[in-house]
């Protein structure tokens, strides 16, 4: 081979190598999401993804990050635990990823916390309401959350049912999932403490994916319940509510974050009226200093195809937390997973849901829980917790 040919080949190879490797500026970092962007829960997941992306886009555009650029690696769990675990592993193995935002479904939060821990990758749970995905119910210090878990949320749902609305004949239904069962267990425990065992007139489980609840509801109708509490998710809740109304069982159906959603009203139609839900988020105008309304305005201006939905504010707040943590990490020795983790454990964050820090178990120091009811085709807030989350206060 002639020397000139060899040189040409080496030059071409070097040239190709330059373009085959991903170009990564020194100050570019990534945050990985792990959310249901397709499938039965996509209405929640897409809203969360968009909201998280919005927080990062705003930070990048603001110029406050200096030469740091943050990008979002969107992960679609497609409603599959296997896919969730794959995404967590992939994010963990990618050195450019400094933090993760994970898991609408509780089961997936439970399945992935140890994977994030294995890679020392900080993760903020924006959904995953089951307490078993959070500390101190496991010991993985990379896990944080910016909303309360079920033990706290269900306490207030039960207080509303037992002490405020004073339901006397409550029938409990769960969907057999870890999320649904725990919701109902906790709700039942507190209702029993507050109003006695006799107000709980029975309990049934349904299978996820089931569509026809009319045999069960017909049986329930003869028991004359004044409240049906359902620990489960949006599709089953919607079908159950429609079939309740169809059978003339017009008593409130109470649910929680698995159902609280504009999509629930959309697919349930008029039958949604009267549905109750406890949820760990507030109407936008209730968040401090107009931050909720500002988020709503920015989200609308960004022209996303889907609404931000119930969990959008938590996702946006998680994005804000990461931006502030990365910013501070850059000033305090460099952006590494260790440093971001340190910032999450020590820093005070200014976010849409309020100013807060994470406690020793990765729980936010600010908690909002509210009781909603569908009235005139919209979720209307009835009660919310006081600022220290000790009691429910009626919303005028």
């Amino acid at each position, binding site marked *: 081979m002639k020397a000139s040919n060899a040189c040409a080949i080496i030059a071409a190879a070097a040239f190709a190598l330059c373009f085959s490797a991903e170009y990564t500026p020194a100050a570019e970092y990534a945050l990985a999401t792990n959310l249901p962007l*397709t*499938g*039965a829960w*996509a*209405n929640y997941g897409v809203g969360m993804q968009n909201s998280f992306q919005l927080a990062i886009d705003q930070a990048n555009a603001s110029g406050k990050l200096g030469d740091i650029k943050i990008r979002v690696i969107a992960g679609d769990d497609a409603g599959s635990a296997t896919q969730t675990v794959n995404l967590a592993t992939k994010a963990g193995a990618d050195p450019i990823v400094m933090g993760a935002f994970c898991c609408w479904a509780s089961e997936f939060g439970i399945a992935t916390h140890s994977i994030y821990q294995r890679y020392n990758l900080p993760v903020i749970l924006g959904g995953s309401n089951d307490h078993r995905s959070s500390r101190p119910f496991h010991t993985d210090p990379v896990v944080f959350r910016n909303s309360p878990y079920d033990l706290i949320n269900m306490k207030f749902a039960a207080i509303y049912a037992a002490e405020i609305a004073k339901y006397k004949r409550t029938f409990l239904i769960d969907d*057999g999932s870890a999320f649904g069962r725990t919701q109902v267990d906790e709700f039942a425990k507190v209702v029993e403490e507050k109003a006695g065992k006799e107000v709980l007139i029975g309990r*049934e*489980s*349904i*299978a996820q*994916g*089931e*569509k*026809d*609840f*009319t*045999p*069960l509801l*017909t*049986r329930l*109708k*003869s028991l004359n319940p004044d409240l049906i509490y359902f620990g489960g998710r*949006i*599709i089953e809740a*919607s*079908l159950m509510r*429609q079939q309740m109304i*169809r*059978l*003339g069982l017009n008593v409130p159906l109470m649910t929680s974050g698995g159902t609280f959603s504009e*999509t629930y009203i*959309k*697919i*349930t*139609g*008029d039958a949604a009226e009267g549905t109750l839900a406890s949820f760990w988020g507030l109407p936008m105008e209730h968040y401090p200093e107009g931050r909720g309304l500002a988020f709503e305005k920015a989200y609308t201006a960004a022209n996303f195809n889907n609404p931000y939905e119930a969990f959008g504010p938590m996702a946006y707040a998680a994005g804000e937390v990461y931006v502030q943590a990365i910013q501070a990490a850059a000033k305090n020795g460099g952006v590494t997973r260790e440093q971001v983790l340190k910032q999450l454990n020590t820093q005070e964050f200014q976010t849409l849901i309020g100013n807060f820090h994470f406690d020793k178990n990765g729980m936010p120091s600010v908690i909002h829980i509210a009781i909603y009811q569908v009235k005139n085709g919209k979720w209307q807030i009835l009660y919310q917790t006081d600022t220290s989350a000790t009691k429910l206060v009626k919303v005028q």
Partner: protein
Amino acid sequence: MLFENWAQQIVNAATIGGMYTLVAIGFTLFFGVLGLINFAHGEVFMLGAFVALLAARLLQNVGVSAGWLLVPAMFLVASVFCGGVGALTERLAYRPVRRSPMLVMLITSLGVSFLMREGVKEFFPEGANPMAFPSPYMSQEARIGTVVINYTQISLIAASIVLVAGLYVLVEKTWFGKSMRATAEDIDAARMMGVDTDGVISNAFFLGSALGGVAGVMNGLYYLSIRFDMGWVMAIKGFTAAVLGGLGNVYGAAVGGYVLALLEVLIVVFVPQGSQYKDVFVFLVLILVLVFRPTGIFGRKPQKLG
């Protein structure tokens, strides 16, 4: 249990039984003429719902919102479309492998099933998400004592009975029915007697798939929401109903659908936590039927044809 509760449970079972029946008839027709357990049939059921939704949206966009016009149009569009899809699938996917071992056709049907399901998920606007389904008669209902039956249920029960009766006439009283029965009995003998067996099989696929599409629309009208992955469970239920009635026997499938629905209701009523485990019990019954009476309720020996 009070009489009113029983009456309500029977109305519940009749509504869902009608859907099971229409899907089961498709399974039994395909098995009868081709010896095929067509797993893509559940996806045809799903396609029926999605095409009807599309038709309803188009009609509503041009100002047609009257239920008496909208609902028949949805049924018509879904049945013609799904019938066409069924006939086309038979021509393109099953006919080339008709003489191959049964397993080949079975795997082909699974491939077709994936293709349809993923196609809707990827290419239908927002196909991955649950979608609200229009149901113009949902809010109108009749009450007999405490028994509630809304107009959607009445129309679904009536439609399934009329379709089964129409199928009886078609199978028993027409040349096509006679040809289909002859093909199911012995395809080579039927061909020798001058029956266009390819045409019969193609028409049987059209018919079975059209009924599946109708069941899909019924499902949407009744449950008010549809999803791209709704076909699989219905396929299993429809297949179970067909086996209960006697695979290959059209009347068996009709009865099997209602028996299956009634069985589900009884399990929920009498078995503690029955709602969660009703599918387990139903499939247990299916296993028992297969073990002790593999020919199903109507006792016709299943045949492999083609």
